[in-house]
């Protein structure tokens, strides 16, 4: 069973949260998109961690987002928990495409999580961007930027997830059998 280094992980997530709120929340790309470090974290975790680890870490990352965002507390914990589970469940197949497609993998992951976030915001009475050309451009930009930044972000994620370097995974056949 893969163990998560919780103290280090929590410290990293806390630091990412603070950096996000203090720095990256002030910069808008194209007037529409912000770099979201915690979003990148959950996508990266989903692509590198095993399912159990990604699910749990996704939940914790979501809690950090809930602390610093407005909306029902727990909404991001729910979204990122599910995102971690979905990405980790399918990430092996994605990574098998090859490291050259890392940007596309990151973009797809960011796209899925952003769409899920907007959907949840609408469902739970928050106000996501109105659907239209602007929102499509925003989500496209978010996905593209997320894909580009994901590879360097893996360096951070690797401290939280026990993986081997350059996108290969720790074999988890025993976990697969346990899930079945």
């Amino acid at each position, binding site marked *: 069973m893969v163990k998560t280094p919780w103290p280090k992980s929590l410290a990293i997530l806390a630091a990412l949260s*603070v950096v996000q709120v203090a720095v990256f929340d002030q910069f808008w790309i194209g007037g529409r998109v912000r770099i979201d470090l915690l979003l990148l974290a959950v996508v990266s975790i989903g692509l590198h961690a095993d399912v159990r680890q990604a699910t749990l870490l996704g939940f914790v990352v979501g809690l950090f987002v809930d602390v610093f965002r*407005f909306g029902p507390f727990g909404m991001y914990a729910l979204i990122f928990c599910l995102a971690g589970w979905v990405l980790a469940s399918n990430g092996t197949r994605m990574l098998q495409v090859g490291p050259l497609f890392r940007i596309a993998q990151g973009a797809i992951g960011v796209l899925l999580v952003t769409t899920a976030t907007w959907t949840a915001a609408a469902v739970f009475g928050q106000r996501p961007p109105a659907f239209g050309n602007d929102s499509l451009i925003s989500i496209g930009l978010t996905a593209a930027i997320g894909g580009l930044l994901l590879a360097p972000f893996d360096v951070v994620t690797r401290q939280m997830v026990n993986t081997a370097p350059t996108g290969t995974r720790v074999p988890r056949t025993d976990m697969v059998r346990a899930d079945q």
Partner: protein
Amino acid sequence: MTTRRLLALLVVTALALMTIDTRGSGPFGSVRSAAFAATSPLRSTVAAAVGPLSATWNGAVHYGEVVDENERLRADLARLEGEVARLPDVESDLAALREASGLATDNAVPKLTAKIISDRDTGVERIIEINRGSEDGLVAGMPVVVGSGLVGRVLDVYGDHRSTLRLVNDPRFQVGVSGVDSGETALAGGDGDGRPLRLEIQAQGLAGVDDGERFETNAFSERFPPDIPVGVFRFDQASNTATLEPFVELDSLVFVTVLLTEQPE
């Protein structure tokens, strides 16, 4: 615990947190406040350091939008300045409209408010046009008033929505008047622009009229309803002439009211 059970547990936990927060109970508000308070010094420091960079970045990225918005704001400003410049005119129109509408006349007489659209002095006569005509029910001869008194009458209806007026100070204008206090009757007529109305009154009647007495239209006129204020009696001893100073400021008319009375053939 299997992964699916873990997922289910986390989902339920997240939903429970959301339910608690939505109901207003729970410590989440305090947690958020504490988190923002704890990070506030760092955020302020970073914001101060990063602020100029952020402003430069956003300015560079949004330069085109800033230029467009600047132009739009300049256009809005010019338009608003124009509207502000027109405000005194609007207020003046409003006051004139109120004046035209506040009539001391019989409320049973149908009325129509009209706007003066041109006021020309040809050297021979002064021609005043209003924006009402045959379509509005106007007929030549109808009295024209404002709140303070008699203005004149409709001279000529020459279009669906065009008519000309003859003012009380026009030399060709005449109206029967009576003193409100003395009851003396007289014939008032125009004597030209800027001059009071001349008053034709019998000599013995003149003795009973005091300077400053108010004169109004009387019931002997076929064209004009009675009791419309016309002017104030003045008597010039030197020239031995009686005049009426019109109540209405005939040089500052904007809106007038036409009394839609029946006119003799």
